């Protein structure tokens, strides 16, 4: 592979604003007296609760066990007592069940999983089981169980590690690759062994030269390649990353394994290394707390269940009243209506948007300039689909492949008429899927 940065077609170039927190080393968040852990943190079936109110748990003990193949277990973020099992605000502005743990302050590990120091000579099936037992999910944002991706039903020839971090503002993966490069590369090697591959490729956007240099130092030792990528949003989207690195196009409605690829996030890879070498389950993650209103934006290693209000306190509070709170980046993050929502396995960022940039627009009629068509990384026609959705012609929208939309928001970002394209497509997808489920029931 050449050193020339790779790219995909389409995409947009929003102001990345990463300077706010890119230079800030990861700090360990201080131990809190209470953690409210949301039970359903993954895509797929919610795990089944195994603790009850009053139970004493150690750090890393099982709180909920996987309830199927596409499901992951959940572990206690610290030692203490299960003080409450009730609903708490979820990331989608809807209340969800959660376990509250009152910490005993000792933060003592329980009986963890057995470390596997001799992983290069261990059966890949055992390693895969470890990934599942440690409750590791895609930590880039989607939260898809990692072990499911590691069980492909089609032949795989490429393992890709996603270190693009194309969302503006976020620097969590950047800091991770810089400070824990060894964990990332080691995780890549372990994942490659699980898939029966000799090598892996780590894709990093070229705006993180220090991280690329750090990874390249170790790349030879573990036989992985590091490839720089053009800075272009959404470079970190699975299908765009595969195209940039291999030139292969995932078919519509297909999965990366259809073109022989498996993509894992770099933070997930580091979590895999932690689970295999130290036997520690996924109970913490690096999250960027950022935004112009914050006094001291930066990167923290948070335990699962840390309330956003505490995270903002750690970042020095706000100097001006922010207009918006997002979980995730500004392009795909979810707006929140409360500070009580807590950090989950896929919370890559806690972002406060100031009043100036959160300015709200009124949607104007489409002027058919075609900028959304140029920007769409999936090569669908946002303007036409928007018309279909406005007329509630969901059959037409389906014909126009709205289901291929990855909801990256590039079209909404670029639209000079400020049309709510992304929201329309989300609705169309929901309506089409609901109609299909109804059809299946019949």
């Amino acid at each position: 592979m050449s050193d020339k940065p790779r790219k995909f077609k389409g995409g947009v170039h929003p102001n990345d604003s990463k300077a706010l927190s890119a230079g800030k080393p990861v700090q360990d968040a201080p131990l809190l007296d209470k953690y409210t852990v949301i039970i359903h943190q993954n895509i797929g079936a919610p795990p089944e609760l195994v603790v009850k109110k009053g139970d004493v748990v150690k750090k890393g003990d099982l709180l909920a066990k996987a309830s199927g193949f596409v499901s992951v277990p959940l572990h206690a973020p610290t030692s203490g007592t299960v003080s409450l099992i009730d609903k708490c605000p979820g990331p989608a502005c809807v209340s969800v069940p959660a376990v509250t743990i009152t910490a005993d302050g000792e933060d003592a590990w329980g009986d963890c999983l057995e470390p596997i120091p001799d992983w290069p000579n261990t059966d890949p099936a055992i390693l895969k089981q470890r990934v599942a037992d440690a409750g590791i999910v895609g930590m880039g944002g989607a939260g898809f169980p990692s072990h499911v991706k590691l069980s492909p039903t089609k032949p795989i020839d490429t393992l890709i590690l996603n270190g693009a971090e194309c969302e503006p503002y976020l620097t969590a993966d950047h800091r991770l690759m810089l400070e824990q490069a060894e964990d990332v590369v080691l995780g890549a090697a372990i994942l490659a062994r699980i898939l029966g591959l000799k090598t892996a490729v780590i894709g990093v956007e070229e705006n993180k030269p220090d991280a690329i240099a750090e990874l390249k130092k170790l790349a030879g030792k573990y036989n992985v390649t590091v490839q720089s990528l053009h800075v272009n949003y959404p470079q970190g989207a699975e299908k765009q990353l595969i195209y940039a690195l291999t030139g292969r196009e995932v078919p519509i409605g297909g999965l990366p394994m259809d073109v022989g690829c498996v993509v894992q996030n770099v933070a997930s890879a580091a979590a895999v290394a932690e689970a295999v070498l130290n036997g520690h389950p996924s109970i913490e993650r690096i999250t960027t707390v950022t935004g112009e209103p914050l006094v001291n934006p930066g990167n923290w290693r948070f335990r699962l269940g840390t309330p956003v209000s505490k995270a903002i306190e750690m970042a020095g509070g706000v100097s001006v009243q922010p207009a918006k709170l997002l979980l995730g980046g500004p392009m795909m993050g979810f707006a929140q209506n409360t500070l009580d929502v807590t950090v989950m396995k896929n919370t890559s960022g806690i972002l406060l948007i100031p009043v100036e940039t959160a300015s709200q627009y009124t949607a104007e009629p489409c002027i058919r300039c075609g900028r959304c068509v140029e920007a769409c990384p999936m090569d669908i026609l946002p303007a036409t689909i928007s018309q279909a959705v406005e007329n509630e012609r969901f059959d037409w929208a389906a014909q126009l492949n709205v289901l291929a939309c990855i909801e990256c928001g590039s079209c909404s970002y670029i639209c000079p008429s400020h049309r709510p394209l992304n929201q329309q497509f989300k609705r169309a997808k929901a309506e089409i899927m609901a109609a299909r489920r109804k059809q299946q029931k019949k």
Partner: protein
Amino acid sequence: MTIIITSLLFAAILGALLALIIGAAAKAFAVEIDPRIETVTDMLPGANCGGCGYAGCADFAKAIVGETVPPTQCPVSSPEDARRIAEYLGITAEEKEKAVAVVRCSGGRSTTLRSPYNGITDCRSAVVVAGGAKGCDYGCIGFGSCARACPFGAIEIRDGLAVVHPDLCVGCGKCVDTCPKNLIVLVPAFVDVHVYCNSPEKGPVKRKVCKTACIACRKCVKAADSAEQMNIKGFLVETNYSNPPLPDLVEKAGCPTTALRQASRHAAGEYEGVSK
């Protein structure tokens, strides 16, 4: 002059010939239509609302004449209209109870907690981004998807809340399917007392986000003439529609949050600003 006469003649002969062919074809390929279908279609309301389950009034008329459905299946026709159709066709039509829609929420803009929302003002679009804009996960979003679906203009959006006017509602059920929160139910029209709340949460949780939530205090259950008139399900009271209470229950119970309302007075806006 001759050119004009020849062309006129030619046109006349051609016209006569074609008319003969069309006339013959119309006789030969005539489609037998039951004339009663047209008459019945005229007797139906003609709103084409689809409340009967058919594509429109003409389609429904075809089904009635084919005697597969009774004329009372039309939710819009009054019982007299249905009886007239039945008499015309010489069939018997069973009386069908008239239904009305009830939006089981009373949380308007001024009574519920809301977060700012700047997306598409349509309920079904709002639920896909943040579950709606109101603090309550179960309540009316208030962007009027149901009001736009109603062919009879019976739903009004007042203070960010969908309110059904029982005198205009014909119970076609079009709104029921549009509500993404499944808030709208069809109930017998003669019942006037309903609980305008749908949240299964505990009382204090509901009260935190809405002033007019049902907190299951049981005042209405105790005040009812018989215990079965109001049912408690979890943290929510429900009118028992097979044994409904009398309208004066609302006065007698004195619901502290005004979640218990008379549909007619709710439509007239008499409960607004009552709850503290």
